[in-house]
């Protein structure tokens, strides 16, 4: 296997006195798509938020290429190349599509490079180019998800953390988003994909972890997990 890009070791996070993560460990190798599955409230979003330092870890470490980045300021983590696309897309509703993308490249000082990256995002998502002057809040759910991913790509990330990109989207749109994620991954970006929709996630991912009330209860190759009885029962339909 290749190099480890992202490594969580016994990571703990709590809200008030309640632990949302009870010491989870997980590795993401270079070029992989790893999916983190689990039902509502399992701690998936908290895992991503802890990696991007939106909430502080109270134990354990997050390492990026072997460097300890636990609780580093969020903007430093972004500058290193770890970018988090939050649950619910969180588009800046009153900024237009172009301004949303520009916000994604906030840490970049070079305007020429910024324009180049915008062009690259527009190639990936032509619909965003058509709507570049439209307010983000007026886009459809699928378009907003594309904008959220495009905005994240503006930082030219090494690792993309995606929190439930399929949420609330029609199956056909979900498939489009998954194809895009695959394309981005083929371009060399490592991906940690959080999903409740285990079916599409396992189809796309190389490996998977299953989270349950703040603990990893299972891990393995995606094709193995998708045949596992307990996963089939819990997450892959009835």
């Amino acid at each position, binding site marked *: 296997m290749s190099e480890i890009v992202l490594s969580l070791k016994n990571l703990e996070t709590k809200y008030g006195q309640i632990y949302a993560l009870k010491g989870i460990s997980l590795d993401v190798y270079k070029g992989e798509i790893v999916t983190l599955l689990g039902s509502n409230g399992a701690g998936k979003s908290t895992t991503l938020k802890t990696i*991007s330092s*939106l909430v502080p870890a109270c134990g354990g470490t997050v390492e990026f290429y072997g460097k300890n980045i636990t609780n580093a*300021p*969020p*903007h430093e983590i*972004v*500058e290193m190349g770890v*970018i*988090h*696309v*939050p649950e619910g897309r*969180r588009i*800046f*509703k*009153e*900024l237009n599509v172009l*301004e949303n993308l*520009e*916000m*994604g490249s*906030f*840490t970049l000082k070079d305007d020429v490079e910024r324009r180049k990256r915008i062009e690259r995002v527009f190639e990936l998502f032509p619909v965003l180019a058509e709507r570049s002057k439209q307010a983000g809040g007026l886009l459809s759910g699928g378009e907003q998800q594309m904008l959220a991913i495009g*905005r994240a790509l503006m*930082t030219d990330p090494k690792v993309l953390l995606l929190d439930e990109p399929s949420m609330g989207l029609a199956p056909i749109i979900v498939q489009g988003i998954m194809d895009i994620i695959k394309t981005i991954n083929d371009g060399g970006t490592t991906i940690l994909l959080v999903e409740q929709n285990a079916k599409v996630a396992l189809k796309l991912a190389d490996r998977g972890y299953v989270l349950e009330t703040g603990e990893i209860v299972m891990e393995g190759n995606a094709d193995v997990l998708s045949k596992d009885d307990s996963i089939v029962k819990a997450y892959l339909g009835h």
Partner: protein
Amino acid sequence: MSFQEIFIQQVVNGLLLGSFYGLVALGYSMVYGIVKLLNFAHADVYMVGGFCSLTLLTLFKDTFLGNSWTGIVVSMLITMVIVGLLGVVIERIAYKPLREAPRLSLLITALGVSMILYNSVMVVTGGEYRAYKTGLGFQGISIGSVFVTHTQIILTVAAVALMLVLHLFITKTMYGKAMRAISMDLDCCRLMGVNCNKIIALTFFVGTALAASAGTMAGVYYGSLHFFMGFVIGIKAFTAAVIGGIGIIPGAMLGGLLLGLLESFGTQIPFIGSEWKDVFSFSILIIILIFKPTGLLGKKESERM
């Protein structure tokens, strides 16, 4: 005076008054937009700005800068920087530690900061009025029997120009866009790599500097300063910000100009004296809020307090 002349005179007066309100309202609105705080101390930094520029102007009087426009402009710019930094310090010491605290704690802290500022100035000035002496004359231009001084014209143009510069800053620069983005979703901005503390500090700097410029202009225009001068304009500017839609930058400018014009025309209503002008203007504003509770440029959701 003919009806037309009265009209022109009130438009001129209203625009000047309104642009002061607008400049102060911008700070209220920007800070509310970004940290959801009604910054009561904002009216007092306006007052501090007036005194700061007066002090500088007095120093400049006998230098090559003089106390005419050159001296006034230089002292205003330096004042904007100094008082802008005061705004940053206030945020850092008084508000930043409370960013996760209930909004009420923040509100009370803002009241405290306000008291500290005006009481300090009261002690320093002995609570007296201070004359704002400039070397400006009383020349002007006449349109019929309407007389407008050069000072009035220059101050109005300067205030509107500052608002336009702010507007360009907010809409065209990355820092300006980040300010707007933070007011929509702070956590998401952190995920974009925005150093939010820096942008919040910048917002306080800009908002406070604009208030300080208005304080300077008010000194030049009215010719005197007082430690409590921020009180009334604070209420007016806050009202202007609400009328325009608090948190919305062009709204603050619009609200300020509208309130200035209403007040100015309020002095001309037949049969009731000009002391009723506030009643007139506030009645209209209440009516506006009844029909548009989030302000003229406000959005539909009513999550604002």
